[in-house]
């Protein structure tokens, strides 16, 4: 087990390092940010002076070397715009992003697993068909459109919920439902198909023949064995939810990491972008890492291997 953990930890480090390197060079392709922060009437000499202060006049490999050296010590530099610690700014947005991602995940699990199990159990019934149709729609709806639709319905038309902003449970409802829609559809479809596979297995037939009650048959024998692939999917999706909530955060003005990242990218505030990518890549890797360990927990076979 220790071997396994060490090996996976090394993988996490490599993934994060590669992601940072790729982003470092890619954002440099978008050009020098200095001029964007200065008044338009700044002369060329003055822009040069600022480039020197900010260090953008040095060769790219020197900048990269310095960046790696500092990043290893947890220093991602200061925001070019406000001069505050870039990592600090990102970390301050993290609770909001976690809140949104976990609520979305919670909502999706709460709805999708019973739905998927039921659809599988009542295969080919009207319920099953409606559920499958709904999941297709759920996966196809673009989140920005759904977000605006929900805002229009619940905030503008009925004044039931705030349209945007962050901080409280009430503010959380619309964005987390929007973010959850895609996952609900994905999880439901996946739970259904995994359950269908398992329900066809011999041991289920045996259990059924030996007179096991339906409830325990489905929940105890079938669902438990369907959990492993579901955990993989949930882990992957949690990573996506944590890092990919950019659109939802923008539409709902949710003060999270995704929105900060996008705005910093548009402002060419490179240190914040890199700190944000670091945090997201790190979380994504860690979540997958935890998922691997959870497998072992759920399936003793993996542990033995």
């Amino acid at each position, binding site marked *: 087990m220790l071997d396994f953990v060490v090996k996976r930890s090394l993988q996490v480090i490599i993934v994060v390092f590669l992601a940072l390197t790729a982003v470092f060079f890619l954002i440099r392709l978008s050009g020098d940010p200095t001029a964007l922060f200065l008044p338009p009437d700044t002369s060329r000499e003055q822009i040069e002076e600022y480039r020197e202060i900010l260090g953008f006049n040095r060769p790219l490999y020197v900048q990269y070397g310095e960046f790696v050296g500092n990043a290893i010590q947890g220093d991602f530099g200061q925001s070019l715009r406000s001069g505050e610690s870039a990592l600090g700014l990102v970390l301050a947005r993290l609770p909001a992003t976690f809140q949104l991602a976990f609520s979305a995940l919670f909502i999706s699990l709460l709805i999708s697993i019973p739905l998927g199990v039921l659809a599988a159990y009542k295969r080919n019934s009207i319920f099953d068909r409606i559920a499958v149709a709904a999941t297709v729609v759920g996966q196809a709806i673009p989140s920005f459109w759904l*977000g605006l639709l929900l805002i229009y319905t619940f905030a503008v038309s009925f004044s039931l919920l705030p349209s*945007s902003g962050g901080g409280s449970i009430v503010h959380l409802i619309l964005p987390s439902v929007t973010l959850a829609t895609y996952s609900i559809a994905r999880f439901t479809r996946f739970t259904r198909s995994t359950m269908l596979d398992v329900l066809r297995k011999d041991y289920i037939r045996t259990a059924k023949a030996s007179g096991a009650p339906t409830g325990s048959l489905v929940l105890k024998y079938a669902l438990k064995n369907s959990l492993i692939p579901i955990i993989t999917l949930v882990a992957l999706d949690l990573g996506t939810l944590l890092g990919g909530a950019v659109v939802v955060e923008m539409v709902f003005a949710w003060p999270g990491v995704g929105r900060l990242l996008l705005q910093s990218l548009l402002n060419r505030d490179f240190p914040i972008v890199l700190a944000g990518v670091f945090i997201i890549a790190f979380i994504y890797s860690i979540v997958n890492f935890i998922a691997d360990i959870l497998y072992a927990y759920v399936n003793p076979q993996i542990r033995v291997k």
Partner: protein
Amino acid sequence: MKKYVLPIFLLVVLFILTACTEGTSEQPGKSNNTDSTTNSSGNKVESKKDSIVIGFEADAGTLIANTDVNYATDAQIRNIYDPLITRDSKTGKYIPFLAESWESLDELTWRITVKEGVKFHNGADFNAESVKFSIDYILDENNGSFYRSRWANISEVEVISPTEVEIRTSVPFPGLIERITGDLLILEPGYVAEVGKDEAAKKPVGTGPYKFVEWSRDNYLKLEAFEEYWNGAPSIKQVEFRYIPEFSSRLSAFLSGEIDLFKNIPVDSVQSVEADANSKIAEVSSSRINYLALNTHYKGPLQDEKVRLAINYAVDVDELISAILNGHATKMTGPLSKINSNYTETTDYSYDADKAIALLKEAGYAPEDITLTLDTPNGRYPMDAQVAQAIAAQLQRIGIKVNVQVNEWGTHLEKIRNREMKDMYILGWGPAFEPDSTIFDLFTQNAPYSGFYDEAIEKEIVEATKIFDNAKRKEAYNKIQHLLVDTAAWVPLWQQGDLYAVRKDLKFEPRVDEEIKVFEMSWE
């Protein structure tokens, strides 16, 4: 039991996070800012008479003055800090504010007399020392002010008496008053020294009409009235700036009553605001101008004056204003808008396709032989990309082929600054109240923004910027304006129509300088 572990774990994590997150304790529906959510009910309207929520597309970069050159930052902190000189909200003329008066003693020295009896939010007195500190703050490299480049001509600031300060410049600098008006806000020296600039950037102290209360990054900035304000207590007591990056969400927040005011409504959404019974549109012809640059630095047909002139005749600005901007703009004919202090009337090249074709022939071109590139940002100026498409179509009418290139704003600006632009590009400029900050910064060789350069005209411009005498200065700039129009330096388009969505019972007059001064607003 094991199968419940994951959901239970997630539930616990969710609630812990909810409990830990900033601002969770406050229910939005209960705060006075969202009272307006249900503003159809009488009692809610009553309670919001002394508070206002203003929507912004972006957070302030920092709350310390004189640092971040950015509209969102400036518009918000000008409610906390005061300037020495402000502008008339309609004409843009200088009005003394914390300054009592100013005079130029000689070409290199200015004396400013400041008001007495003004207090900062922390009780400290405002005086000449605060002025010196605020200018020195910009000039000090360690403070990382992006304004510093514009103040490079300042050599020294000396306090003469508690109410008098002298500013010395290294070269004659008639534009100093413009710099002071546009950039300088007054900091409290004692406070910044005591808490440090990092802390002062999070909890600002100024002499302005509103005191800092709370700032939640990317979420909101809350201010409250400074009752001892030297200019009288503000009518609106609670102010919240709320950050909603997405326009549709901002509009929804406005229509649902969560925000009372926001700037920059696209012309195609004006109707949805006007259709709402609780809302109105406020509009002002801004000092910000939009133009079509004709790049003479790029080797192509536009280096020929006749071709530039032909383009001026072929672009129908009136049609663009009525068809694309629904009339929300004020046409310009020369380099300066009517609001500019040295504006003079110049020739209006109105639409004339035949003349355009004739001019191209004179220049030795058949229109069909010309293919031009037109770069535009997308969403930086009202309907910019659509305007570019329409200009392309208008030029196509006389046979010129135009390829429109739509850029992300940062890329657009960088292409201009690196002189990587090809034939034409769309750009805006402002606030443009003074000829120096428009003509000098646009039409000289080192200024990349107009794409136009002419050695003889540059000489005239450089001379004009040195003139202290107002009448002579105006005369010099009149001549330059005519020269620029005669050589068809660019295609002037319009002054932007600034559009604001406003709650119907809010007394609000939009300002030509785009500032959002809550002090000037009140509820009916």
